[in-house]
């Protein structure tokens, strides 16, 4: 920055809240909960980002978008850091982000229902005692069924509403 005054952190966070997720552009990077830290180290702005899925192709696009957005605001010295731990969880998607997802037609994650690799979860589902109830984002019915564990992106599963018959994406828990 040419001026001696560096933009304050809250202002930078507000700017980042305007950067859309490249795959689901209705929610922002801050809605998604992947911006782990923003701080000034001397006159360098350091933004710490955590990946959603380790192979998500959007990760590199997200970094480019962050850089472009902050450069456009006049940030000259900028460093992006990757933080793996603690691993990203859908629990970090904000309440506002969840509403935006629902309005967009994607059922938001039901917290606490992530697969844990134990077969007990599968058995509970088969026995109908699973706590996973996904409401259709269009008609609100809870009579829905899973079509596939994996949807159009790694973070989503494919579902179908048996009342209004609409297929929809469910943002699955991780």
């Amino acid at each position, binding site marked *: 920055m040419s001026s001696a005054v560096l933009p304050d952190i809250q202002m930078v966070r507000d700017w980042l809240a305007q950067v859309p997720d490249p795959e689901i552009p209705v929610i922002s990077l801050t809605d998604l909960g992947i911006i782990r830290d923003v701080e000034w180290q001397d006159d360098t702005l350091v933004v710490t980002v955590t*990946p959603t*899925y*380790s*192979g*998500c*192709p959007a*990760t*590199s696009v997200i970094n480019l978008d962050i850089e472009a957005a902050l450069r456009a605001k006049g940030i000259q010295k900028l460093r992006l850091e990757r933080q*793996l*731990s*603690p*691993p990203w*969880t859908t629990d970090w998607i904000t309440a506002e982000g969840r509403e935006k997802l629902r309005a967009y037609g994607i059922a938001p994650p039901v917290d606490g229902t*992530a*697969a*844990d*690799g134990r*077969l007990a*979860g*599968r058995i509970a589902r088969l026995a109908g005692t699973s706590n996973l109830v996904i409401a259709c984002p269009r008609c609100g019915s809870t009579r829905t069924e899973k*079509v*596939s*564990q*994996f*949807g*159009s*992106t*790694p973070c989503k599963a*494919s579902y179908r509403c048996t009342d209004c018959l609409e297929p929809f994406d469910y943002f*699955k828990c*991780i």
Partner: protein
Amino acid sequence: MPSLTDVMTADADLARAPGIRTMAAKGAAPSDAFVDWLCRMGDNCLVLGHRVSEWCGHSPVLEEDIALANTALDLIGQTQLWLGLAGEVEGKGRTADNLAYLRDAAQFRNVLLVERPNGDFGQTLMRQFLFDAWHMEMLRALQASSDKRVAEIAAKAAKEVAYHLERSADLVIRLGDGTEESRARMQKALNLLWPYTGELFLGDAVDQAMVEAGIAPAPESLKAAWDRTVAEVLAEATLVKPEGTFQHKGGKQGRHTEALGFILADMQFLQRAYPGGTW
């Protein structure tokens, strides 16, 4: 192969990568053993990820095509983390890209199971299930690794692999306990792949060095939990565990089947023909 946008980062040094060093398992210094072990983790993900991605556009139904591509994507992402760390620990400036694209078959450290051809859909799923059941136990144990970087990668990957295991177990059950035709195919796949599972639990000097450093569990220690998962799913799938005890080995030490050469010819062609090429 999916997710190449991530793998193919610009790297002017790609063409000038240092010569490939033979990583001898026997008598290796701890850091050499660590690099070797990280390559085992990364190469398992890389080779299986490539194999699974071969289905892209060829699956029986659209949902399965997407699911397979997603699984491959996770595995390639995990490859970047493991091989990236291998390059960092090695300290010779090699990136995950260098390791993936510029090593020959004898330098690959994946188990033979993951390089087995896809066969039919059932064989692909059976291979996935047998691997996922091991992968889950391994990642669970690694979250207690003495190396913070290893523990962090394991914690990240375990969340993804939990979904892989859930899916592959579900499908093994549905197809095993399915029609006469699907059951016969799943049993045939199991018989074919079973002799490639023993290597997952066979430790050597590299594993011993990792155990002593508190970095990774002894491969043998994962066997009981794997046996339980496999027995439970096979029983529900009405499939019978093969009787034979013969097991193939050697992949972890770089002795591969010819299948790996074909995979690498396909996967590495661009970087071999146009060194350092990017897009």
